[in-house]
């Protein structure tokens, strides 16, 4: 009988513990998802916003009343914001900044990766960050560098470049499991297998479209260009399948 009671008590605690985690994931599913060019990011009851030089934190526990609770200067020419677990990756004209948000109300600067000035959206997983750099006056300084940089962030305090891959004019990017999708402006998009971060493998290339950013949703990717919205099925990453295309200008 005592064993029975212990078992029941143990089960209750175990299930409770499980439910606590579920609460977090429920609130996650009530938020949408931006592309890698986003300047907003929602994490549970906090809204992170970047604006040219600053990172701001709004408390959105009361969803319809965002309240500014933290503000700090990050750098200059801040372009993009990406969150992975307890870290924010901020892309700017001068480099990538990594902040820790274990305390969500108060981001703490961890490290940065500086490079020559150009725009850089960034996405990351547990151990690797992927950054694109492209030429073009919008990125303030003209340069001819059009690359995807791969950074080892297994030691988050010390990002280490481990690879660089040439593109035509890379813009936004996204991760579908270990597959990396890179929008290459007027050159379409490319899919790379990033299972071995030391050596990415080009697995697919779709040209004939002009795309600037991508949102992965499960096995599907949504790509946006100046004139079109495309959706592809990436169940077989070696052979992306077009689901739909909208000519938005005439839509």
């Amino acid at each position, binding site marked *: 009988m005592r064993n029975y009671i212990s078992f029941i008590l143990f089960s209750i605690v175990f299930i409770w513990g499980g439910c606590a985690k579920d609460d977090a994931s429920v609130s996650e599913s*009530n*938020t*949408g*998802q*931006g*592309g890698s*060019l*986003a*300047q*907003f*990011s*929602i994490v549970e009851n906090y*809204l992170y*916003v970047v*604006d*040219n*030089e600053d990172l*701001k934190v*709004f408390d*959105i526990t009361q*969803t*319809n*009343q*965002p*309240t*500014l609770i933290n503000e700090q200067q990050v750098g200059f020419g801040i372009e993009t914001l990406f969150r992975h677990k307890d870290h924010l990756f901020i892309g700017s004209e001068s480099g990538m900044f990594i902040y820790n948000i274990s305390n969500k109300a108060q981001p703490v600067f961890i490290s940065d990766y500086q490079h020559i000035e150009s725009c850089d959206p960034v996405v990351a997983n547990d151990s690797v960050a992927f950054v694109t750099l492209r030429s*073009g*006056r*919008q990125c303030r300084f003209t340069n001819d560098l059009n690359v995807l940089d791969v950074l080892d962030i297994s030691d988050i305090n010390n990002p280490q470049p481990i690879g660089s891959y040439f593109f035509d004019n890379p813009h936004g990017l996204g991760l579908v499991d270990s597959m990396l999708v890179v929008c290459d402006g007027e050159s379409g998009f490319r899919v790379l297998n990033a299972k071995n971060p030391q050596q990415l493998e080009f697995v697919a290339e779709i040209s004939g479209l002009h795309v*600037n*950013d991508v*949102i992965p*949703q499960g096995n*599907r990717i*949504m790509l*946006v*260009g*100046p*004139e079109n*919205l495309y*959706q592809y099925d990436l169940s077989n990453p070696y052979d992306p399948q077009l*689901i*739909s295309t*909208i000519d*938005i*200008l*005439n*839509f």
Partner: protein
Amino acid sequence: MRDDGAIHRSLLKKIYKKDNLMKKILLLVGLLGFFACNQNDEVDTVINGLKPVYATLPELQNIYAGPPIATESLGKIYAKPPYIYLNDGLKGVHVVDNSDPSNPVKVGFIHIPANTDIAIKDNIMYADNGPDLIAIDISDPMNVEVVSRATNTYDVTNRAYPILADGVYFECVDPTKGFVIGWEETSLENPKCRR
């Protein structure tokens, strides 16, 4: 004492009394000299570029949902099933019903002047609106309502340029003229700003 002015006048009299050919040559040289000296100073640089479209405060803060409109210049993308939101210029977001991804349908447009980005939690859309961050209730995407406004979140002087425009010349923004809610093509004379 010699009077240089008198010598000058006497020279001119001599030239004047010379034959017509001489006068014509002198006239031609004079005209060429005149044009040569002025050629590089008088011509303006005229370039195709953009100029800001200004709005008053009430116009800037006029947030509303309407029927679908034509797309002009797409920017960022945001997805919250079943919808995809596509930012357009500095006007707001197209609302696309993506319940069937093989057949996405534009169902409306949420007008948010000067907007560049959004994020959504539950039924609240957060959006930048000029210097402010606003929260918009989108429970009914065809009938939205601003429910709060965090004023002066953004320093608009940092955003006084056309986005997604490589190498373009533009008329510099003059904040005394109002809030920038768009950019339009124009001919610019000696433009001072370039992106």
